[in-house]
């Protein structure tokens, strides 16, 4: 299992690099599909089965189809669009250095005990201990009850649904409103302006 995490996340990183590095837009889109499918595998390994299905259905199946559709519709130029510059190599090194620095900083913070208690025999995260200590109320303690075994015994989709419609009901409703506004906005922006017809009342 742990080896699988290494392999899959490594492949996902390669896909992420290729999204940025591909010359053609359609290749970027296909690499992004690969990245999303690999992330779904990681979600499965992290005991988030419902989210893995959502990732494949909505991201790889919905959003990326929309992307490919728009790419086919607009057929933008296929040439490389990264500007040629005389000191491009130097700039590339600076960018690479920044990327490695930020990634390394986060890795060190995660590894050196800021969030992870190495001395604990049970390998609990420091955030969990702090989260438990900060608020001893029963409702707060319940937030950390979802061990993988408990979730699997109850059913992953069941647990997600119950949490979504109890503690997270308000954010859920707000996202529904957001989707409605986005759909109306997209329809408004993409409608045709015809000369021979009276303008739509704004």
């Amino acid at each position, binding site marked *: 299992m742990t080896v699988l995490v290494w392999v899959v996340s490594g492949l996902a990183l390669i896909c992420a690099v290729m999204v940025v590095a591909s010359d053609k*837009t359609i290749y970027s889109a296909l690499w992004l599909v690969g990245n999303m499918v690999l992330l779904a595998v990681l979600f499965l390994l*992290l005991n988030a089965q419902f*989210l893995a299905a959502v990732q494949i259905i909505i991201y790889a199946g919905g959003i990326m189809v929309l992307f490919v559709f*728009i790419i086919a519709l607009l057929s933008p130029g296929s040439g490389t669009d990264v500007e040629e510059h005389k000191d491009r190599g130097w700039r590339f090194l600076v960018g690479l250095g920044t990327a490695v620095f930020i990634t390394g900083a986060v890795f060190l913070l995660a590894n050196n005990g800021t969030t992870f208690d190495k001395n604990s025999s049970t390998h609990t*995260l420091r955030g969990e201990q702090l989260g438990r200590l900060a608020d001893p109320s029963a409702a707060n303690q319940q937030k950390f009850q979802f061990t993988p075994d408990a979730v699997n015994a109850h059913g992953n989709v069941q647990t997600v649904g119950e949490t979504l419609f109890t503690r997270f009901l308000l954010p859920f409703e707000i996202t529904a409103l957001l*989707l409605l506004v986005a759909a109306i906005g997209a329809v408004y922006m993409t409608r045709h302006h015809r000369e021979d017809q009276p303008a739509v009342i704004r």
Partner: protein
Amino acid sequence: MLDTQQTFPWLLAVASGMFTIGALGVLIRRNPLVVFMCIELMLNAVNLAFVTYGHFLNSMDGQMFALMVVVVAAAEVVVGLALITQVFRSGRELDVDDLSEMSE
């Protein structure tokens, strides 16, 4: 079961690496479609961090917020692609440097 001590920092590093790659892509690419894909990449990286934290904290909140992020990403892509379509229809070249001004 995943080994917490090995996989937790590694997954966080992968998430931060993916986020950095996406941010660099937004900065260096000039095709607005690729820029949007790089934004998707960044959202995906945050999703991975959310789920990783949620799993190792024995909490469901990470998965919940990852679901919200997926919905927000869908809404953002719909509006963004509608904008790009309109820009293309107005006969302009798809290049973020040329589109830095929204008016006209």
